[in-house]
């Protein structure tokens, strides 16, 4: 049971959040943003399901996760990147600017307690902002759609971690920067930096690619693809928590800048060690209903019998789309099953365009127990048959995919009214009542 003092601290933060025009603007904008994504997705899904009487897509290709909720909830990625940081920064920077923080620093509450109260309040605000997203789930069920609980909870967890990361960064920026404007620039600069990192890493691979796999967008993508990776959960949480700890260090204005810098360096070292350890975790679970991140159950059973380490040498440049196919369709799935696996990227040039045929460009070599074989294919069955030969394991008899698909030829009835009219009106009314009448 939290103490009375802590409850009042949370109440103070919540009142400050509700007094923030930035928060009400975020609420106002999130409804139409989610609504647009949801309505467009349901319409497209309905057409792919044959609502217009035209040729329908294969049922197995229709998944509510991909077709509806990843695009609809994409609005939250946008909001947490471009809108939410302003709300989080205000919660810290306003108290610094108004002198309130000087009063609080002298109170019996520790900085950690006060930052925890801020974090919980931001979480409450973010949950509030998720009402349109949760409405999308309800509407989808009302239309007759299906939901696969594990993959949906996993997607929501991904968005929660995306929030933790964004909150940590924004609070740290608010604490370190001199004013809210500088903090906002720093936060957006970080976001743009991660986009640049992803762009550069896509063409270079190696350490940069590893680093880029933990950028906010890339981390969320893991959950959007139905994967649950403890490594991603730990690294993302660590970034967010490190942000809050850094805020605690820098908000302690009674310490010299030198001491605060030293504490930050120590924090960075601990963070780096933790992230390096966590990123080595290869464990991952495929929670998607259509098992898109897994081989068939029969293949997984056969591969589980492979005991030898596998070495894969890839002669494809990071920019080559075939490498992306190979990574997603083969290597990522193999990494989750095989006990030991090493991947070597051996292309000589950044772009494969100028490699000579003698450089083996395009080849993928698989090596196991002293036996080697090469294939240029990125097709799952060809590569797996190749591996079974190397491992001297008999290939399983394969059946058709067990995923039936969930076509739904339904229009998004009532969604436009809810997202474009009811939500903005309700938000405006609640905001007006709160800001004008109660405050």
């Amino acid at each position: 049971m939290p103490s009375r003092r802590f409850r009042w601290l949370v109440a103070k933060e919540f009142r400050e959040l509700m007094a923030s025009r930035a928060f009400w603007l975020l609420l106002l904008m999130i409804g139409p943003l989610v609504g647009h994504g949801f309505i467009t997705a349901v319409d497209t899904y309905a057409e792919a399901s044959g609502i217009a009487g035209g040729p329908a897509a294969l049922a197995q290709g229709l998944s509510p996760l991909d077709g509806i909720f990843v695009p609809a909830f994409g609005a939250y990625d946008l909001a947490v990147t471009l809108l939410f940081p302003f709300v989080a920064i205000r919660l810290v920077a306003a108290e610094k600017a108004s002198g309130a923080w000087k009063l609080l620093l002298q109170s019996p509450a520790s900085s950690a307690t006060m930052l925890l109260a801020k974090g919980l309040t931001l979480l409450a605000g973010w949950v509030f902002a998720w009402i349109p997203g949760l409405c999308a789930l309800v509407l989808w069920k009302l239309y007759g759609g299906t939901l696969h609980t594990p993959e949906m909870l996993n997607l929501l967890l991904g968005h929660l971690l995306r929030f933790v990361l964004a909150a940590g960064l924004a609070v740290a920026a608010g604490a370190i920067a001199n004013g809210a404007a500088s903090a906002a620039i720093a936060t957006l600069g970080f976001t743009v930096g991660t986009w640049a990192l992803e762009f550069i890493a896509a063409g270079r691979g190696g350490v940069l690619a590893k680093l880029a796999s933990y950028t906010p967008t890339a981390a969320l993508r893991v959950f959007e693809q139905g994967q649950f990776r403890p490594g991603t959960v730990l690294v993302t949480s660590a970034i967010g928590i490190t942000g809050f700890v850094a805020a605690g260090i820098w908000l302690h204005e009674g310490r010299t800048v030198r001491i605060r810098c030293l504490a930050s360096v120590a924090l960075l070292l601990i963070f780096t060690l933790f992230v390096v350890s966590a990123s080595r975790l290869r464990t991952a679970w495929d929670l998607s209903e259509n098992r898109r991140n897994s081989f068939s159950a029969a293949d997984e059973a056969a591969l589980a019998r492979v005991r030898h380490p596998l070495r894969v040498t890839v002669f494809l440049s990071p920019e080559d789309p075939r490498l992306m196919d190979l990574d997603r369709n083969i290597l990522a799935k193999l990494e989750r099953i095989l006990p030991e696996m090493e991947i070597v990227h051996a292309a000589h040039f950044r772009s494969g365009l100028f490699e000579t045929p003698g450089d083996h460009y395009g080849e993928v070599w698989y090596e196991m127990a002293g036996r080697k074989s090469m294939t240029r294919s990125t097709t799952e069955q060809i590569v797996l048959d190749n591996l079974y030969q190397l491992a001297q394991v008999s290939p399983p008899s394969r059946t058709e995919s067990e995923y039936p698909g969930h076509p739904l030829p339904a229009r998004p009835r009532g969604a436009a009214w809810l997202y474009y009219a009811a939500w903005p009106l309700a938000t405006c009314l609640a905001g007006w009542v709160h800001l004008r009448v109660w405050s």
Partner: protein
Amino acid sequence: MLLKAQGITKRYGNSTVLEDAGFSVHEGEVLGLIGPNGAGKTTLFECLAGLLPADGGSVEFRGETLAAGHRKHALFYLPDGIRPWADQPVQWVLAFFETLYGRPHGESNALATDLKLERLLKSRIGSLSKGEAKRVLLALGLLTPQPLLLLDEPFDGLDFRQTRDVMALLRTVPARGRTLFVSIHQLVDAGRMCDRLVLLSRGRVVGVGTLPELRSLAGLADVDGTGLEEVFLALT
């Protein structure tokens, strides 16, 4: 002795704002800190409170060295010119402070009455005039329980009547077991309010004591009717 500060020094680059400042605060007194604008009064308070890192010096509280990180247990510093939680109503902020410091229920209401804040309880702090906001801040300061209360310009923004009322209220604080250390730029107010005075000029303490002691220090002991202004001018 409640608090003893020795050798407090603060520099910003090449500029020395406080240089070897030292003085004592006695239990139950009202000590005044006077000095011209830019003398370093606020910096001294912030260094004492541990809100600004000093480049040198030490603080003892009841004979024990008090590290900057532990000052909040011994003293509370109320800055001048701040406007905290501007969007919140006065009543709520007072109740928040009352709870934060575990004060008896109803103490904030009593202080609101003493400081004539009843009419303002439902107003947002951001909508208050300078004098009203100052009285709310004083209420916050008086709600804190630390033995030593540092008030930076407590009468700034108050009119004559309010200054007189607040001064009377502050004079009752030592009787309730707290010690006051107040910075005042109005020398007349300082003379009426304080038991002893610390004179600060260009970051240096140029005199500490009662008005007669300061007169002697300034060599004006024999001049009849010498006020604090003359003493201050003589010493700075």
